[in-house]
């Protein structure tokens, strides 16, 4: 459901109040950034996409009918733009491999425990990147965003039963990947 004040903010924006849009940005910038960042691990690229999400929202808010909640609507934009970007630029292992290796090389005095965590983070990132798009979306929304299945179903426009199966297979694939990488 929409927050009542969000519907008001959207209406205010559509009546020319730019401050109303700013309020929506302030409310969702971190959530949107992090959902994008989980899919596009490089910060600069994630920042570009996050801005594009809000720009698209700015341009399309007049067509927002309130059938779904605002955050369902904007999450959907974020996920679609992120996946488009992944497909377009064929991002493969951007974050943790490039960044992680550089950090590894330039911080060889880091404690062993931290290095192991970084290595494990890299493996997790690789495992997530290898997931099929649908499973990836479900996993990110469920695990990192901790959204209930019915909310995810609204965002992805699919059935709860299918989502649960997708989540199970995503987690299992990550587990299998980690097992083989050990």
């Amino acid at each position, binding site marked *: 459901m929409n927050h009542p004040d969000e519907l008001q903010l959207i209406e205010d924006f559509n009546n020319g109040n730019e401050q109303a849009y700013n309020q929506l*940005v302030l409310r969702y910038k971190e959530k949107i950034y992090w959902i994008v960042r989980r899919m596009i691990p490089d910060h600069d690229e994630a920042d570009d996409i996050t801005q594009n999400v809000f720009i698209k929202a700015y341009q399309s808010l007049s067509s927002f009918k309130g059938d779904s909640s605002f955050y369902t609507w904007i999450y959907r934009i974020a996920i679609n733009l992120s996946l488009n970007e992944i497909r377009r630029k064929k991002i493969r292992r951007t974050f943790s491999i490039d960044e992680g290796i550089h950090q590894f090389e330039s911080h060889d005095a880091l404690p062993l425990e931290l290095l192991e965590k970084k290595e494990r983070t890299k493996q997790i990132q690789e495992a997530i990147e290898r997931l099929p798009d649908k499973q990836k979306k479900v996993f990110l929304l469920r695990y990192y965003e901790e959204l209930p299945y019915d909310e995810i179903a609204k965002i992805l426009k699919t059935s709860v039963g299918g989502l649960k199966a997708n989540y199970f297979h995503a987690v299992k694939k990550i587990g299998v990947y980690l097992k083989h990488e050990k």
Partner: protein
Amino acid sequence: MKNNAQQEMLIDYAEGMLTSEQREEADRLLALSPELREELEIIRSAFSGLQETVQDTVPEFYFSTFLPRLRQQIDSGKEFSGWSIPYFVESVFRPVVALSIVFVMFTAYQAFHPETLQSPVYALINDCAQEEISDVVNGVVAFPTVESENLFETTLDLESFGIDLFQTQSESELTALLGEQGLEQVMQNLENSSID
């Protein structure tokens, strides 16, 4: 193959989300099935790995400066650089653009290399052995091969033949190859042939 209920149970079990009754039932099922136990182990290792990860970081002041940067982009009215074409459009758009580029390059190449503008006549003669050309010139045969005859029948009428011949700069090569009289003779033979 596990059913959805078992998949959900394994996830909830690993996340500690089961009630005590559900947990007892799950333990009973797990005791009976090595496959389920193995899958639970995989699920647990996934969650365990996920919890061990290092938290991603963002530059200091990133979120506090996000809105001003965004507003600057919107207010400047510039074209949004990172605007993504929907993938399903892009998947069609890219091959079309690629083919268009190839077509333009090919056309440009031909324009600057007219010798490659092989009219059907040029192609025919260019592919013929000298003896075959002589036969054509002398009117022994109108067409040296069945393929070449088909080529003329399907792609060329006399009018277009004339246009092709004189528009293409390969005419000079034809002349060099056959001589002016030879070329005239070929044209005469073609005119007398059964091309409609």
